[in-house]
């Protein structure tokens, strides 16, 4: 029980202090899980983090589940996930109830017009760095292009892109093993 509570509290802190994508949580995890609690080593943390990016789901939640499972089995995984979710749920509910009251205000409309453009710029630079680190050979270019076309042009569900990639991965494994 003590382990579960410690996991919950640690991940509550991490969920409350991180912003944006899972990458921002790595320094927080190092401080809390490796240095403060000494639950796992920095090397194990990087493994957990790498793995969390490869399995489905939100990276931060996956990392929480991974460390929780390692420390306290199924109960530990549940405690860590609940911890990392608590702050974001409360924050969003506050923002949503307050923000929605002003949604049709003219200043709000022009402000969000500008915010949307900033989002477009931020997401463009995120995609550029994703392409730099994930697309490395001709097969990668083909898969990336196929993924883009399947969504942007053919309007298919993203599920098909994931299934396509899994099929290609299986074929490559069959060839190379």
């Amino acid at each position, binding site marked *: 029980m003590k382990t579960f509570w410690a996991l919950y509290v640690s991940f509550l802190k991490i969920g409350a202090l*991180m*912003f*944006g*994508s899972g990458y921002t949580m790595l320094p927080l995890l190092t401080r809390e899980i490796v240095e403060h609690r000494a639950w796992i080593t920095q090397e194990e943390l990087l493994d957990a983090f790498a*793995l969390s990016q490869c*399995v*489905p*789901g*939100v990276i931060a939640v*996956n990392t929480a589940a*991974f460390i929780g499972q390692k420390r306290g089995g199924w109960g530990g*995984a*549940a405690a860590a*996930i609940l911890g*990392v*979710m608590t*702050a*974001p*749920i409360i*924050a*969003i*509910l506050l*923002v*949503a109830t307050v923000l929605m009251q002003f949604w049709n205000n003219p200043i709000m409309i022009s*402000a*969000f*017009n*500008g915010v*949307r*453009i900033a*989002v*477009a*710029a*931020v*997401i*463009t*630079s*995120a*995609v550029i760095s994703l*392409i730099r680190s*994930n697309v*490395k050979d001709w*097969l*990668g270019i083909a*898969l*990336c292009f*196929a*993924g*883009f076309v399947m*969504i*942007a042009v053919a309007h298919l569900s*993203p599920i098909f*892109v*994931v299934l396509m*990639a*899994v099929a290609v*991965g*299986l074929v*490559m494994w069959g060839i*190379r093993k």
Partner: protein
Amino acid sequence: MTYLLLFLEFFQTGLFAVGGGYATLPFIQKMMERYPDWFGTLRLADITAISEATPGPVGVNAATFAGYSAGGVLGALVASFALVLPSFVIVSLVARILEKSRQSLLITELFSALRPAVTGLIAAAAWTVIYASLFTGSLAGGFWQAIDWKNVVLYAVLLGLLFVPKVKKLHPVFFFLAGGIAGIVMGLF
């Protein structure tokens, strides 16, 4: 009924969104097409901005926010728990299995195919956001007529700043704040 649909949609998202926060966006985009009344006048970029600007992982924030606008507080809880349920099961199983079989070739091959495909998928969601903020109205009246030049200039300036070594390390919230202020100023003219 809405709650059941929310559960199924976000469970699917949690099950198939590989690659972190932005990977949930194409799924939410698809939901916006399928259930337009869930999101009212909200756009994908609004959900992205609010998720980036509040504490917590983008994926959980986006699910909570989308769930709230579709079905109130209960909708928010249903959506966010449905999103993390696959993580709970899959990651726990993987963590247990992985202790035995590290570095298998099958896993390596699967992920080296998944990463570029997911990048393309995220690029498609990004395109929707870019398109919606740079073009006003439809392309029917001609490509050049549809472009909002004020918006293009602001986009280019902000994107340029994102390549300046020290500036690009700033948290995205600062860029959203700058965009919001520029938006208010542009709205005055």
